[in-house]
C-alpha cells in the first residue's frame, strides 16, 4: 500500500497521468470541433455539386465514409484503432494516416529544429549584446530591431524574401519537388534555409528579450558579485556564472517554441511547399478527412507533451537547484 501510494504520488507518475488526461481531452475536443462545424466529407468533396446526388448515392457515400454510424460509435471506433496502432485512413486517397505522418513528421521536426537553431543563434547573442549596456543605444537599438522582427508577420516576410530572391538571383529551390534530408541533403537544406530563417526570425525576439532580462537579473545576484570579488576571470564569470544560469528560462522558452512549431509552422510549410504535418492538418480540415485531422492533431499534442517533459529534464540538468528540489 505504501509503495502504491508512493508510486501514485510520485511526480513522474503525476506528470504521466496529466499527459494522458491532456491527450484524451485533445481527442474529445478535436472530435467535437470537427463535427460542430457544418458540412461533412460528402459536402467537402462534392461542394455545391452534392445537390446533384440522389438519396441512394448519399446513403452509399455515408456508408463509405462511416457517417451513418452514431458520433459516439465513430469516436470509439477511432480511439480503439489507436490502441492497435491504426490512426485511420485518408478516405479519398486511401493512404493510412500512419504512413502520411511518417512522411510528414520528419520534415516538420527538421524545420522546427533548424528554426530553433536560427532563433537561438540570433536571439541569445542579441540578448547578451543588449544586456551588455542596458538602457544605452546598443540596448535600445537591439530591442527596436527585435520589436520589428516580432511585429513582422511571417507570411509577409516569407513571401517578400522568396519573391525577392527569385526575381533578383533566380533562386527558388522550393519551386522544385521537395527533397527529403535522406534523398538529397544538399537540396533539402537549401529548401529549408528560407523557412527556417523566417520562422527563426519570429522566434528570436522572445529569446532575445528573455536572455536580456535573465542576464540583467543574474548579473545583480550576490553570487556573481562574490565571484567577481574573489577574482574569477571575467570570461569565466560571463560564461559559467552568468550565461549558464541565464539560459535556464531560454531553454524553457525554446521547448515551448519547438512544441508550437510542430503544429504552428503551417504558414511556412504552405508558402515554401514543405510537406509537413501542419499542412497535413490543413488539407485534412479542408477535405473534412476526420481521421487525418484527429490523428495528426493527437500526434502533434503528444509531441508537445513529450517536448515539455524533455524540457523539464533539461531544466533539471541545467539548473542544479531543480535537481535538489
Amino acid at each position: 500500500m505504501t509503495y502504491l501510494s508512493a508510486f501514485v504520488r510520485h511526480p513522474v507518475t503525476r506528470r504521466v497521468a496529466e499527459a494522458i488526461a491532456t491527450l484524451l481531452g485533445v481527442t474529445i475536443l478535436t472530435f467535437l470541433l470537427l463535427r460542430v462545424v457544418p458540412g461533412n466529407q460528402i459536402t467537402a468533396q462534392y461542394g455545391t455539386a452534392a445537390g446533384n446526388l440522389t438519396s441512394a448515392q448519399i446513403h452509399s457515400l455515408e456508408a463509405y465514409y462511416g457517417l451513418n454510424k452514431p458520433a459516439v460509435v465513430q469516436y470509439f471506433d477511432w480511439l480503439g484503432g489507436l490502441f492497435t496502432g491504426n490512426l485511420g485512413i485518408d478516405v479519398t486517397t486511401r493512404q493510412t494516416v500512419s504512413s502520411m505522418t511518417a512522411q510528414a513528421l520528419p520534415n516538420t521536426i527538421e524545420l522546427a529544429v533548424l528554426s530553433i537553431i536560427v532563433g537561438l543563434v540570433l536571439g541569445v547573442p542579441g540578448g547578451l549584446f543588449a544586456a551588455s549596456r542596458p538602457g544605452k543605444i546598443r540596448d535600445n537599438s537591439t530591442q527596436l530591431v527585435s520589436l520589428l522582427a516580432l511585429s513582422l508577420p511571417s507570411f509577409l516576410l516569407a513571401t517578400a524574401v522568396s519573391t525577392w530572391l527569385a526575381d533578383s538571383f533566380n533562386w527558388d529551390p522550393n519551386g522544385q519537388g521537395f527533397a527529403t534530408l535522406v534523398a538529397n541533403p544538399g537540396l533539402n537544406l537549401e529548401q529549408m534555409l528560407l523557412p527556417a530563417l523566417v520562422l527563426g526570425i519570429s522566434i528570436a525576439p522572445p529569446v532575445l528579450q528573455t536572455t536580456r532580462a535573465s542576464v540583467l537579473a543574474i548579473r545583480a545576484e550576490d553570487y556573481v558579485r562574490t565571484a567577481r570579488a574573489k577574482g574569477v576571470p571575467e570570461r569565466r564569470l560571463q560564461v559559467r556564472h552568468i550565461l549558464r544560469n541565464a539560459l535556464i528560462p531560454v531553454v524553457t522558452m525554446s521547448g515551448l517554441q519547438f512544441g508550437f512549431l510542430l503544429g504552428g509552422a503551417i504558414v511556412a510549410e504552405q508558402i515554401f511547399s514543405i510537406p509537413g504535418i501542419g499542412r497535413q492538418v490543413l488539407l485534412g480540415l479542408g477535405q473534412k478527412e476526420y481521421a487525418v485531422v484527429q490523428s495528426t492533431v493527437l500526434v502533434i499534442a503528444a509531441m508537445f507533451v513529450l517536448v515539455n517533459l524533455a524540457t523539464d529534464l533539461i531544466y533539471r540538468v541545467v539548473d542544479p537547484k531543480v535537481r535538489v528540489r
Partner: protein
Amino acid sequence: MKKPKRRGATALAAGSVAVAGALLVAGCSTSSQSGSSSAASSGNGSGTLVFGITADATQLVPWTATAEESVEVLQQLYSPLLNTDSSGNLVPGLASLPTVSDGGDTYTFTLHSGAKFTDGQPVTASDVQYTFDTIMKPSSAASSASYFESVASVAAPNATTVVVHMKHPDASFPSGLSTIQTGIVPSGATASALQAKPDGSGPYEFVSHVPNESITLSRNADYFAGKPGAATLKFQVIPDDQSMVSALRTGAVDAAIFSDPVTAKTATSSSVTIDKVGSLQYHVLQLRAASPVLSNVNTRLAIACAISAQGVVDSAALGAGTVTGPITSPQYKSSTADQPCPTQNLTKAKQYLAKAGQPNGFTLNLITSQGLYASAVNEAQAVQAQLGQIGIKVNVQTLSASAYVSDWLSGNFEAAIAENAGNIDPNTMYARYFTSTGSFNKVAGYSSPTLNSLFAQGIATTNVAQRQKIYQQISEQLVDNAAWVWLYTPEEFIAVNTSVHNFQARTDADLSMLWQASIS
C-alpha cells in the same frame, strides 16, 4: 572590468551574425547551381513539362472528380467519347459524333480504331458499356451520374459500336460525354484500383504520385489522337500563389493557372507570358423567391435594377470578368441587353420597390463564402453598397466554405453570392435549378409551369436553331421574373513559359489540349 565583458558579448553576437551570414551565403551559392539544375529539369532537353497546381489531385477516378486539379490531371490520363473544340462545339473524341435515331431515343457511337489503354489492351464498346453502367450505379456515387438521368440502358453490339437507349429524348445528353468525368475505363476496373493506378487511354500514362507534392506522367506512345508533345508531364503542387509566381519566374515550373489578375500580372516577365481566357462559369446574386422577403416579383426586379454588374466586376474582380446574362453556353448565349434593366437604373428600381409596397426599402440577408473563391466577399460588399442606394439594407453573412455549402444546399438563405458551373448545353446549366423537380430547385427557389414546359421542349428538340429560340425564351423568363441577378463570367489567367510551344489556352482554362504542348 566592463570592457572585456562588452567585448565578449560583442564577439559572440558578431560570431552569430557571421554564422547566419555564412548559412545564407552557403544557401545562395548552392542556389545558383540548383537554379540551373532546375531549369534543366524543367524541360530543357529532357522534355519534361512542369505544370504548377495549387492543390494535390486526390481524385484519380474519373467519375468521382469534382476538384479542378483532379480534372486537369485526369484529362491527361483518360479520354471521353467526345471532345469540344475551342468554340465549345462537340467534336469526335474516343468515338465519332453520334448518330441519333429519328425520335431521339437512341444514340449510336462508333469507337476510334486503334485506341488502347495504357496496359496495352484495346478500348472496346464493352469498356464504354462498363464505364457508363458503373457511373449509373448509385453505389458509385458518381458526380457524373446526372448526365445519364435520361439513359435507359447501354449496349455494345460489337467491339466498336455503342448504343445508348434513352428513357425519353434528351438533346443535352451528348454534352455530358465530353467531360472527363465520363472518361472511359477498362472493363472490370474498380474505383480503388484506379485510384491507386489510373489506367486510361489518354495522351499520358500514370507514372507516380507523391501525395501533396507531385504527379508524374509519361507520354502514351499509343495515344489515338497523335503524339503528345512532352516526354514527361509533371504536375507540381505549390500551394501558395506567390510561390507559384517565383517558381514560374525561375523556370522551376513551366505553366500555371491564376484566377487573381494581380497575381497573374506579377508573373509576367520576359520568359513568362499570360493568356487571358473567359469562362462558362458565372457569378450570380441568387435570390430565393421562395423566401418571404423576396416572394414579390417587384421586390426582385427592384434589386435587379439597382445592381450594376459592371460595377461588381470592376470593384470585386478588378475588371477581370465579362457581364453576362443567364446562359453562357456559346451556342445559346443570353444577350445582356434583353433585360428589364440592362444597366443600373435606380429610378426604375425605386418604382419597383414602390410597386412592391416597400418604397423605403427593407432588410435582406445575404450569404457569401470565405474560401470557396477569391472575390466572393468583395462581391457581397459591392452588392451591399449598391442596394443601399435604394434603401435596401443588406446584412452580409460571411460563412466558411463548409457552412456556406451546407446552407446553400439546404436553401437556408434569402440571397446568396455564388459562382456556379457553366456548360456547353443550357439544359445542363439550368434544368436542375429552375424546373420544379430539379435537384437544385430548393436552392434556386423559383420555378414556373412555363419554365417546366420550356425546359421539356428544350431537351426534346434536337434542331439547334429551334433549341436556341427555346432557350432564349427561358433566358427571358428568368430575367423578366428576376429569378436571380446574373453578374459576370470570370476570367482566368494562364501563365506559360516561353519555352512551352503549341499550348492552346481554352475557355475555363480547360487543359484537354495540353497534350499538344511541347517544351524546348
